[in-house]
């Protein structure tokens, strides 16, 4: 789009540093010096580790997610996962349920399980729950539960990673008071390092999304009397349902 005031500003920076324009000496501190091939090879190694080490990683994330504040449920099959999701909604006594339009709902029959409990979820996309963005926003703020899949989970921190995109609104995991995330075995990364290796590899390939959210527990604040309270703006309750 537009860049304003750049040359004068950079001139002052160079003046303050007493240096001239130019490419810095290579430096090992930052990862910037890695070539695209290095990054792509590292990303492939990460993907292999996710699948080779899936059992240990899923055990680890179940533990770290619970520490981070997720209510974690592990189930054996997609059908069981759908039942758990429906049961969470029933236990919470809610009827206004919103879900994203992600692949996970093709394998985990959430709609059917909810229907069996008399709940019809809305799909949080422009064109389904709403005809336009303001309508979608209203639907997300009105909903009592938001259900999504999980792009990656991170064992180190108990984090769910979501990349908003077509079918996955930014608000469905944020505006409702409860968020349920469905994680498939095999989508767990060891640590933040591997996440950003994959992101960089995607960026190099021109495949990075407009934004990314790392979610590690409920919305929290400690701003009144230094007491931690859940649910200041976003969900006060977050559930992680792990399949397989």
């Amino acid at each position, binding site marked *: *789009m*537009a*860049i*304003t*005031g*750049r040359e004068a*500003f*950079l001139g002052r*920076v160079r*003046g*303050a*540093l007493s*240096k001239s*324009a130019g*490419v*810095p000496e290579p*430096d090992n501190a*930052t*990862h*910037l010096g*890695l070539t695209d091939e290095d990054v792509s090879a590292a990303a492939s190694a990460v993907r292999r580790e996710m699948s080779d080490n899936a059992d240990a990683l899923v055990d680890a994330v179940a533990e770290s997610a619970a*520490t*981070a*504040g997720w209510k974690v449920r592990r189930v054996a099959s997609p059908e069981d996962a759908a039942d758990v999701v429906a049961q969470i909604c029933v236990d919470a006594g809610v009827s206004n349920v919103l879900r994203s339009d992600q692949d996970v709902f093709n394998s985990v029959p959430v709609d059917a399980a909810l229907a069996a409990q008399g709940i019809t979820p809305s799909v949080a*996309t422009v064109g389904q729950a709403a005809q336009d*963005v303001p309508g979608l*926003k209203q639907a997300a*703020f009105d909903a009592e539960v938001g259900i999504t899949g999980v792009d990656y989970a991170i064992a*180190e921190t*108990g*984090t769910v990673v979501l990349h*908003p*995109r*077509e079918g996955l609104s930014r*608000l469905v995991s*944020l505006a409702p008071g409860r968020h349920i995330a469905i994680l498939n075995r095999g989508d767990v990364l060891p*640590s*933040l390092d591997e996440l*950003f*290796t994959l992101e*960089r590899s995607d*960026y190099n390939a021109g495949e990075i999304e*407009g*934004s*990314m*959210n790392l*979610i*590690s527990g409920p*919305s*929290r*604040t*400690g*701003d*009144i*009397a*230094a007491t931690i309270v859940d*649910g*200041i*703006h*976003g969900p006060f309750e977050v559930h992680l349902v792990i399949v397989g």
Partner: protein
Amino acid sequence: MLPKTENFKRGAAETLADPIIQESMEAVYNGFHTNRQSAGAATEGWDDQRDRGRAIKEHTIANLDYYLNMLADNVDANGGNVFFAPDSAAASEYILNLARDRDVKTVIKSKSMVSEEMSLAHEMEAVGIEAVETDLGEYIIQLAGEAPYHIIAPAIHKSQDQVAEMFKETTGVDPGDTPEELTITARGMLRETFQRADMSVTGVNFAVAESGSIVLVTNEGNGRMCTSIPRVHVAVMGMEKIVPSIQDLSMMLRILIRSATGQRISSYVTMVNGPRRDEEEDGPEEFHLVIVDNGRMRLLEDPKLREALYCLRCGACLNACPVYRKVGGHSYGWVYPGPIGAVVSPVLSGLKQGKDLPFASSLCGACKEVCPVRIDIPNMLLHLRNEVAEGPSESRGSGRMERLGWKAWRFGNMKSGRFRRGGKMANFLGRPFARDGMFRRLPPPLSGWTRSRDLPLTTSTPFRDRFKKRRQRGEG
């Protein structure tokens, strides 16, 4: 906000006498500081990661022109706009013009210290644009009409009763009095505001040069609201908040968050790579990045102060500082309190009026010890003390009489004869005013010393004389 760094001593004295604040500030140490200590101990290779973090900042700041240029190119390529602001007035003007041009009625703000430098919320309100702080702590101090007390816990000095009182005044109904009830009340008040917001202003925890991304760290989710709901998103950053590569983020996030609250990670970390993509369901249509100097060049150009620009704004040095915990955040008189504030504020606001701040430290070194990027704050404070005493006359903070006094002191101590005679003369002259060998109260300018402690009288028989006598008696 306008700097009021000249009022340090008065502010500190008032805070020391305020029992509510003194009690509230206990949490800074017992909560944040102890949590940070255990988080560091629990992180594998913690000290190596800090070294690495420092090395990244050192390299980036040394080549800041190159990385700012790369950042601007990539934000542009992502479909965003970049504005380089030489000072806070230029930054405010850009954002206000944008708001007017886009017919903005309501702005939601996520915590941004740079926007505090700009008094942006005030500026917006002054031209009739509703501007609401959405971090709960910031919201509370906005209602109170105050400045942040702590970098990551802006309302740490307010008791829950004070918060309840303010909420009651704002809503007209009883908000309850427990932190849980008050939080639910705030949730209701702010959710309604989020929904009608048409522009957001956020800070930036990290900007990534290679991808033109910005990263926001929050626990509350207000950063996510700000990057999801409004039509226009404006991110404001100090020019130093930059890392070269996406892959540098993992370690920087780790050292930032663990140093700030002791959490392994905050509830939310949001990365924004420009405006929403066409096929996306929602998100801002416009993205603007405002990169602000506002005095930072003065830190950059002084090799002894440059590392102040490595600061991640985690607040760990505040929590560790025995002075900050007692004198509180407002005494420092500007946006940045505590040890890092004692370095940054006088330089950004002018050393002459901020001359007391470099002295607001016992130089115990706790700040350097906990800093995630090992900034040598004590050394910079010493450097600034030297500038205050002997720097160029326009920035010098010491008075003529003070300098004359120290010159006389130096003269008296240069030669052993002068030292001996001076000591004896001081004893002779001082004896009538001392009691039990101590001065309890001295007239100005020495009254500052005796207000909180006694000054011993120089001895009538100095060590040299006693030593000589012992030798003469054959005891030595």
